[in-house]
């Protein structure tokens, strides 16, 4: 079962320094927070989609299409009842939705999907080792960087084991198709216990294997793939900073791209 997100391609985004990519992700998050008008937000989303195309990461967008779609749909349906706008659209009892709040909901959905999409591009183009390396060079202690990337690394492994465990339990009569919420919770135990034990065994063995190959979290090490900040990295960071500055001015100075003022 292959549920790793990294796609081994050779694009300009893959070649960026992991630090550039990490800072870039944070800046794109900030850019997403600038507007709450769906049209403006959509423009940013399209921009991210274009980046995804040039990073050849669309496959992962396709794999997670349901999640992305759900985020937009869920947000569009629920936000209108929480945000308040001047033009009433529809109301039922104490529930009110306005034209502005509906637009706001769409914008929020796009924003969430763009967040996820940005993260997806990052994970599709950055190796686990590069992530560790980037974190360390940004001043993160090695043990923490290593723990973080190991956690990411083990998710697919455990997901695979989980799938096998479910099959094994279903084969001897565990019925996951019927039952109310309470009986379903009790059915969780036969799945969770073996997975938990598997995880302990697996990490224990991994620790042994890593130590046997000379790993120790305190000592220095070399990195075989040593990414460097190159001209393009500085260009990308400068470009993102410029965009952010312009958009921030558009929002704060010119009051553009706002359906509900006073909200992010």
């Amino acid at each position, binding site marked *: 079962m292959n549920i790793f997100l*990294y796609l081994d391609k050779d694009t300009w985004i893959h070649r960026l320094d992991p630090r550039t990519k990490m800072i870039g992700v944070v800046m794109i998050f900030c850019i997403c927070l600038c507007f709450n008008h769906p049209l403006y937000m959509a423009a940013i989303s399209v921009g991210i989609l274009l980046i995804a195309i040039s990073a050849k990461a669309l496959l992962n967008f396709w794999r997670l299409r349901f999640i992305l779609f759900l985020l937009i749909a869920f947000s569009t349906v629920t936000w209108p009842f929480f945000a308040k706008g001047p033009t009433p659209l529809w109301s039922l009892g104490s529930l009110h939705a306005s034209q502005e709040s509906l637009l706001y909901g769409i914008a929020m959905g796009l924003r969430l999907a763009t967040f996820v999409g940005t993260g997806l591009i990052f994970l599709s183009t950055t*190796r686990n080792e590069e992530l560790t390396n980037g974190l360390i060079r940004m001043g993160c202690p090695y043990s923490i960087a290593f723990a973080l990337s190991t956690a990411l690394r083990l998710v697919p492994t455990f997901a695979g084991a989980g799938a096998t465990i479910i099959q*094994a339990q279903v*084969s001897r*009569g565990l019925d996951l198709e019927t039952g109310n919420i309470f009986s379903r919770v009790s059915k969780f135990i036969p799945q969770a216990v073996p997975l938990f034990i598997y995880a302990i065994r697996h990490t224990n*063995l991994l620790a042994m294997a890593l130590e046997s190959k000379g790993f120790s979290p305190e000592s220095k090490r070399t990195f075989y793939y040593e990414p460097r900040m190159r001209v393009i990295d500085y260009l990308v960071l400068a470009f993102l900073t410029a965009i952010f500055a312009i958009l921030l001015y558009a929002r704060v100075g010119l009051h553009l791209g706002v359906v509900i003022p006073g909200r992010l």
Partner: protein
Amino acid sequence: MSLAISIEELTFTYQGAERAALRNIRGQIEEGTFVAVMGHGGAGKSTLCCSLNSLVPRFFRGEYQGRVLIKGEEVAQHQVAEMSRHVGFVFQDFEAQLFSTNVELEMAFGPENHCLPREEIGRRIERYLRFTGLENLRNREPSSLSGGQKQRLAIGSVLALEPKVLVMDEPTTDLDPLGRQEVLSVSKSIQEEGRVLLIVDHEPETAVTADQVWLIRDGQLVSKGAPSEILADVAAMESCGIRTLPTVELFHSLNWPGTPLTVEAAIEIIENHHLAQRVGSKVKTAPSGYLRGFPVLKAEELRYIYPTHRVEALRGVDLNIYEGEFIAILGQNGSGKTTLVKHFNGLLKPTCGRIMVQNKSSTEYTHRELARLVGYVFQNPDHQIFARTVADEVGFGLKMRGETPKMIGKRVAETLEVVGLQGYEQKVPFALTKGERQRVAVASVLAAQPRVIILDEPTTGLDYRHQRNMMEMLRRLNQIGHTIIIITHSMWVAAEYAARTIVMKDGGILSDGPTRAVFGDEARLAEASLCPPSLVRLSNWLGMEGLTVEQMVKELKTG
């Protein structure tokens, strides 16, 4: 030659354990020696391996006496990471020891930890990729490799540290026959390079090419010596719970001269001493005593495509399985064995074609009904054991079906008796041995009294005694009327126990028939990169019918 390893009166007791895992081990290994360590499960083989790179006592704590010296340095005084300069360690579980996101980085991991300069790391990667034959896979994700490739990568990633001693703890146990060959050929080149190689393995065939064989029983080193001496000692091997070489056993039982370790040696002795006549005619392929009648499972033009990979795992399989058969399915990993049998209990639905279970299409059953008819025991018992007592574990399926506690108790007791675990009801399943846990897993499927029981590699990871017990138990179940289907990589298991053997290759059936006939056609088996067990090869050469030592002895004495 100088001494590479020296073990002096080593005794080790794990924290909280009552019995010592190793007792007064004494041994010396010279440079460039290949040592095969053998013994029953729990004999202390792994503990011995771990004591060589200081996992014992640094990682596993306990009471440690004696000394282990590697190149004159005392192991226990060093951290595991420091010992990695001298001792490489390859584990049985190749999934857990691979960690990086591509093959090249996996190789680089050890040298990176040792702060080698990047140019040197690059050189070592090249060198050991070539050594392990992985140079064309350098950018692959390790999880996408086959089992044999993964284990080769694990070996290569350890070799990249250029240790003088390489320890491999059951490196081939989880592999298919092809992967096993790959790993063994890599270890042969390691031996030629002049490193010390210490391998733990259950198969006596591995030990034939060793310089020294060590037999361990209950934590004690009972004997060591050249393979020709140790492997020929049937009594010592049996007392340590190791399978004897069948050629040796055959010659022993017939009082023939010599102790041939290989088929070739056996043939030579037979020819030189005119011990037996080769029968010119080919093996009879008539289906003698072959069960027919009611097909309990039937596959028709079965095709399956995995949705995530878009690979056709089954390409039109037609198969009838009759009530009361004992079937072994052989084939390399990825040949479609597991995909096929998962259709029988409805875990997978055919992409094309259909599966008939008792003359009714499998799609007409609910999952539960199918699980009652066709039980499926997964390879790793730890994937399903969760309950606090063996009784809860075995009764789980019945409880899910809503049976009364009284009925469950009765059935659990019956089932435990069948699998030879009577009186185990209140024991904690996690605390049992691997062989016992495997039986608990079988019992938990058996409790639903399915007509067909499918077992995925029931003997993998068990030592010889437990393998025998397991297979004898399956034979008993077969005799009381259950249809048994096993997937196995163990050729002798198939040869001794299965009446019918199916060989799969590339999602199709390569050959299917009585086990004797399937094993008689060595050319056909070779197409699936399989080789019959050595005894069957000898039997084929002689033109005999026998598949086991007893059968052959009988045949040779009467004929």
